[in-house]
């Protein structure tokens, strides 16, 4: 589905605006120049909402506007029915920017105390996130001594200091090694059972793995807001790996170890398998080769 306006059937709205996140006709940007134009959506259901778009599309600008940092030129952002300009609305959301946002010149524990002070968390919360993010061993180190990945973990730790209704996470797994990134995604998925999580990423496979909904931003406009499972790629390509070479695969396009075939959709996969079996091809693996999210960047 492609839309420039919210589709109530996609993210069911409650009868009132007292819950969730509302963005109505939002236009904002920098120094008077709009970057986002007329963006509208309504989110109430706890889930991970993946925000996708090419570089410069306006994803970071959207997060900054939702967090109340950038003021709207037109439209409004409502959190729990209250304008984000009010402190009560800000207190309902966490914002993790694409930058670390870690105060240099402090030790890790002191940095967490700094965050706790801002977010009105307590000492027990600090102890909890030190264990949750497995950074207790770093607690005594200066921020300047940390690697990029360690800094990111400290940065992420702060959004777990206090529970809030909405989490705005701008590229939370950037600079993390695959193992830690997977652990962070697991934490975020657990979080999303009860919370609304907006999550931006350039990793389409990660987005597909973690997201239930996708918001695609292109040239400052919201072009798609739908469940990821509803997205159908423009093409459906599967890759076949055979146990040994076969003449029956001669008509397939080759990409690495895979022989590619474009199908009309997943429903044609059984027929392809039967065709390959009939041709004597011993199939070792068959997988989808394209990610429908890729088409959002086209």
């Amino acid at each position, binding site marked *: 589905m492609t839309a420039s306006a919210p589709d109530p059937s996609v993210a069911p709205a409650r009868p009132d605006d007292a819950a969730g996140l509302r963005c109505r006709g939002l236009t904002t940007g920098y120094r008077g120049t709009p970057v986002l134009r007329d963006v509208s959506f309504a989110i109430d259901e706890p889930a991970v909402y993946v925000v996708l778009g090419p570089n410069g599309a306006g994803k970071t600008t959207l997060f900054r506007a939702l967090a109340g*940092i950038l003021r709207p030129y037109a439209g409004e952002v409502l959190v729990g029915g209250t304008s984000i300009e009010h402190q009560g609305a800000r207190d309902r959301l966490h914002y993790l920017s694409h930058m*670390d946002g870690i105060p240099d010149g*402090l030790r890790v524990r002191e940095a967490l105390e*700094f965050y706790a002070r801002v977010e009105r968390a307590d000492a027990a919360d600090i102890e909890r996130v030190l264990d949750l993010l497995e950074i207790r061993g770093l607690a005594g180190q200066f921020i300047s001594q940390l690697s990029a990945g360690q800094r990111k973990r400290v940065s992420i730790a702060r959004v777990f200091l206090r529970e809030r209704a909405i989490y705005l996470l701008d590229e939370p797994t950037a600079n993390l090694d695959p193992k830690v990134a997977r652990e962070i995604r697991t934490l975020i998925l657990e979080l999303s059972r009860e919370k609304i999580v907006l999550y931006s990423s350039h990793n389409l496979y990660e987005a597909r793995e973690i997201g239930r909904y996708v918001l695609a931003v292109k040239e400052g406009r919201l072009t798609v807001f739908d469940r990821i499972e509803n997205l159908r790629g423009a093409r459906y390509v599967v890759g076949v790996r055979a146990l040994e070479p076969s003449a029956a695969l001669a008509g397939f396009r080759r990409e690495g170890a895979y022989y590619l075939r474009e199908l009309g959709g997943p429903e044609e996969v059984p027929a392809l398998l039967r065709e390959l079996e009939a041709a004597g091809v011993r199939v070792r693996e068959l997988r989808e080769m394209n990610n429908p999210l890729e088409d959002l960047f086209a």
Partner: protein
Amino acid sequence: MPRGYGAASHMEDDAPAGGPLSLLGATVRRSIVMGRTYLILATALAVLIGSTLSLAGGGTAAAVLPLFLPVFTVQGSLGAMMVFSNDRTKGVLEYLMAYGVPPRRIFGNAIVASLALVSIVLAASVGAVLGELAFRGRGPSLTLIRLLLGYAIPMSYATVAFAATAGMVWASLSSPRTGINSPVGLLPILGIAPPLATLVAFAAVPADAGYVLAGALGLIGAGVLAMIAGVDRLMARERLLSPA
């Protein structure tokens, strides 16, 4: 184990005794840590010059020190601007604004941290000179006292407050945010100009030195107040963001 901070509002800034650092306290501490090289060098140079003068010529010679002191206090206060510049680039200011800390408060914390660093340089250098004189059984000359109280100390605080404020405003209004265009790059120039201009005015203006100094401090103070008053407009939140 730090105490809980559940009762602390982020709009307040007074940490309970023994509790975690307040935002202001953290800014001051980070200014000292990040700017320690400048702080140590500026303090050491001021102490060295002051001690040398008092050793060589006693209280009369030591009276030259106050004329230099504002230069050293400006250098020693660079740490606060380093924190501001670093926080902007690294997204700390963006984080603070998202949680409701207004730019005016960020601005104010940086100024207060600058003044705290000035106090360290002043306390060390003036203390060293007075200690040196006392050790030699000599008191400070009247000229030294007058120059310290009537020029060096108020001018040091005033010029650093001016430089910090102007540096942050300048950095916020210009697109390049690092290097010489950052407050760290501009602060030495902005900070040294007012005391130098005042010294020139002492020599060039045919008026009592007290009036010249009062006029200079008044102009600097008015500049600082005007910039602080305009901070909500000049320091629009988007001006404090890290590059997208």
